[in-house]
């Protein structure tokens, strides 16, 4: 059997959406990946591990094999019967699947939330208040002479970000690393920090204070204290000078900022800082989105409902109130009475109390892999990997949309998210209309 080499393959792991991978396929299996980072090759070569391959349904306390048809039928009846089903996940699947998911939640009067609520939800709340000065990643590659990573560790979480888009990339107006300054702000000296020209180490949970002080320094306001967040005022003022004096600055931030105390206040402070810097120079800001299509989940949900996540359809129209209508809050309050999880593992990721409620209601999971969530589910619907075993469009962290390809067949008999969700929506409609 001859090998086939496919170029320009789009990676479906993190929000960088690198699209220059070269994949070798032998006998309908990926055997080699070039140009990818460790996370990406981990997925590309490991996608066949620990797969769900057979629809399963719980009988008594044991999961028994079943058919898609039967599992979908029972799922449809379960969510129809629920007064407020939760539809959660969506950041590791295609825009097409997400759109069907929104319609399903609307049709059944449930809650539609994606993983944003536990990663960059505060970022979105910040944007509601302040807006954002942003751009596509290529603008940064071409123009930025100063790059900040704040509470973000791309060396680990977005391994090719720096080489493709920022300090190590070659742009039209910035040719190399020496044309750019790298500043890292973090609570610890991460591997990214080790590469920085300037590293600012701050005390945990003091991002807000530091951000506000920095903004004051940018404005030229006097700061009373000698240190803020463990950082000396001299250092803060020096940093402010650097920001003002660059030609094009870019601030990337990660969960270190969204998750530490203050949450959306931190983001508001960051967004305001960058907005303000635009009166002195050109400055942009961008969240480092994690899952490859979490941005797509936000976008699709927004054009269909007006809101990016945590949408409540229980009253027949989209309502939005993160903190109330978001998954962790709903579950912690014990509100939802069934849940459909798509391409996500909340049992591993949600705080115990929220996860606990998930396991006390009918739990249905659509996922390519066996995970703690599938292990706790009443129904498991195996699905194909988007970008490997099926096509689908996805959003890069900066909103550039790409069409991923199908490289190999899914395991025998396994359906795609789009197929499963459309069958489910059809079944729900036929039962209710």
């Amino acid at each position, binding site marked *: 059997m001859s090998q086939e080499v496919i170029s320009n393959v789009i990676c479906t*792991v993190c929000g960088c959406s690198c699209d220059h991978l070269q994949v070798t396929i032998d006998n309908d299996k990926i055997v080699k990946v070039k140009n990818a980072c*460790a*996370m990406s090759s*981990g*997925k590309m070569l*490991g996608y066949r*591990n*620990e797969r769900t391959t057979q629809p*399963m349904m*719980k009988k008594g*306390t044991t*999961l028994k094999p079943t058919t898609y048809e039967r599992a979908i039928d029972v799922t449809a009846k379960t969510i129809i019967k629920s007064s407020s089903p939760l539809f959660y996940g969506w950041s590791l699947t295609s825009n097409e699947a997400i759109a069907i998911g929104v319609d399903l939640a609307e049709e059944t009067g449930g809650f539609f*939330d994606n993983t944003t*609520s*536990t*990663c960059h*939800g*505060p970022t979105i709340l910040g944007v509601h208040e302040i807006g954002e000065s942003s751009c596509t990643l290529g603008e940064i590659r071409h123009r930025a002479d100063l790059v900040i990573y704040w509470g973000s*560790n791309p*060396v*680990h*979480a977005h391994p090719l970000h720096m080489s493709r888009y920022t300090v190590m990339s070659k742009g039209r107006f910035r040719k190399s690393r020496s044309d750019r300054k790298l500043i890292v702000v973090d*609570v*610890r000296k*991460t*591997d990214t*920090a080790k590469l920085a020209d300037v590293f600012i180490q701050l005390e*945990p*949970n003091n991002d807000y204070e530091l951000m506000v002080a920095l903004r004051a320094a940018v404005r030229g306001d006097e700061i009373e204290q000698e240190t803020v967040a463990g950082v000396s005022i001299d250092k803060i003022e020096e940093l402010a000078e650097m920001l003002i004096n660059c030609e094009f600055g870019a601030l990337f931030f990660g*969960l*270190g900022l969204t*998750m*530490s105390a203050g*949450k*959306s206040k931190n983001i508001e402070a960051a967004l305001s800082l960058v907005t303000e810097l635009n009166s002195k120079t050109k400055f942009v800001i961008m969240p480092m989105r*994690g899952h490859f299509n979490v941005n797509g989940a936000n976008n699709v949900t927004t054009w269909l409902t007006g809101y990016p996540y*945590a949408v409540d359809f229980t009253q027949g129209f989209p309502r939005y109130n*993160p*903190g*109330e209508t*978001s*998954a*962790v*809050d709903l579950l912690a309050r014990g509100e939802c009475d069934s849940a459909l999880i798509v391409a996500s593992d909340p*049992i*591993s*990721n*949600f*705080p*115990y*109390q929220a*996860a606990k409620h998930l*396991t*006390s209601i009918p739990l249905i999971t659509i996922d390519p*892999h*066996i*995970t*703690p969530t599938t*292990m*706790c589910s009443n129904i498991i619907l195996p699905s194909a990997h988007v970008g490997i075993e099926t096509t689908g469009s996805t959003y890069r962290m900066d909103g550039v949309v790409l069409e991923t390809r199908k490289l190999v067949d899914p395991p025998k008999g396994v359906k795609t998210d789009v197929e499963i969700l459309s069958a489910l929506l059809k079944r729900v409609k036929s039962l209710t209309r």
Partner: protein
Amino acid sequence: MKKIQVTLLSGRSLSQGREKEQGKLSESYFKSVACCEINGEDIKEIGLDYGENVRISTKYGTVVVKTTAPKQTLERGIIFVPYGLWVAQVSGSETDGTGMPSYKGISSTLESAKKEKVLTVDQLIKKSFSRKKSKKL
């Protein structure tokens, strides 16, 4: 036995990111997330060596994980546990009206758990979510 107060940080790590793609039941994933990076002084203080188990307790719960030397620099008083099922057991559900639970900077107590085992995925699910018994598929 000596207990110390620390701040718990959680986040992605390269190995967690990589091993997650290998499958969440894999030994390598287990190793990459059921662990706790801790400063050399701190570990001495609770009387452990790297590789021995530690109990992390917060107001939300308690879990036993294995200690490891920090892969990136880590100050005293801070521990790092990668995202995953283990750290979730000690994370809180309050979101302060943001939808986002607290994963960073949770105050925790650390004590030796030399004699205890780190629970595997199966065991941990059974213990925490016992209404449904996990079954191998």
